């Protein structure tokens, strides 16, 4: 058997605290007027949070390459769809 490094309790607690901190940060930034940069920053923070959930809570960190590839492709598809649609409307 190949020994795979397992995530420990510490990883889960730290990830949870990081997720709460990022939520607080996102909330605090939403109170400051950042103009067009605001939503971009909020989505960037959300992406960071989703990455923590996927890597630690969903054990993607321990997963195999083929499994890790699925969310990468899905995120790319969603981004292409949203950016394509938004830029089409913006360019009219």
């Amino acid at each position, binding site marked *: 058997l190949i020994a795979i490094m397992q995530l420990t309790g510490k990883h889960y607690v730290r*990830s949870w605290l990081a997720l709460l901190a990022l939520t607080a940060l996102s909330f605090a930034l939403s109170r400051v007027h950042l103009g067009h940069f605001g939503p971009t920053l909020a*989505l960037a923070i*959300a992406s960071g949070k989703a990455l923590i*959930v996927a890597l630690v809570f969903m054990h993607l960190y321990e997963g195999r390459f083929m499994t890790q590839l699925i969310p990468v492709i899905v995120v790319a*598809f969603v981004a292409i769809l949203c950016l394509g*649609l938004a830029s089409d409307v913006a360019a009219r």
Partner: protein
Amino acid sequence: MASHDEAVSDEHLVRDWFEDRAKQEHAVRFGMWLFLGSETLLFAGLFGLYATYRVAHTEAFLAASHHNNVAIGTINTVVLITSSFTVAWAIHALRENRPKAAVRSIGWTLLFATAFLVLKGIEYTQHFHEGILPGYHYRFAELPQPGARLFFTLYYFMTALHALHVIGGMVFLVVAGHMVRRGRITARRYLTLELAGLYWHLVDAIWIFLWPLLYIAG
């Protein structure tokens, strides 16, 4: 005797077409991730519509999102993130052969999930009283039209579809929790709980994006 029993049942559980349990579990996990991918693409259509309408009706979308109850939305974000943690903790406890702690942790998750739905219900009720309803039933005139109507129609579609997933995830967790209690999910064999957990985390991950888009978008 117990380990002998487990070894026998393990062998029984590995299908003929898999060499061993590790390969079978990898295939099941891979299949679950594919399913979660297709679930995400179901939401992708709504995210695409959101992007389109937001660019077309930016001012109305900002005004409408500011009208949403930020306190409830933010508390629900914290609640779901914490519920994701308790599910991860349940699997962690089970891996360390602490089934009772795992069941307790699943119980906490179900409690958080219920709190989420109750808060969502309170929010929906507030909207209903103001006449903020989806599609042609929209009656709240204080926000710019037609953008606000589009925003709230999408809001209802996205949050209701998400709430259905919360309920689905709760059912999955109740079944998994019951199996842990009955000793059918153990420290050596916990794939079913892992799959229920994966589904729950997807529900959390989708909300992580819904929160900024619907509550703090400005």
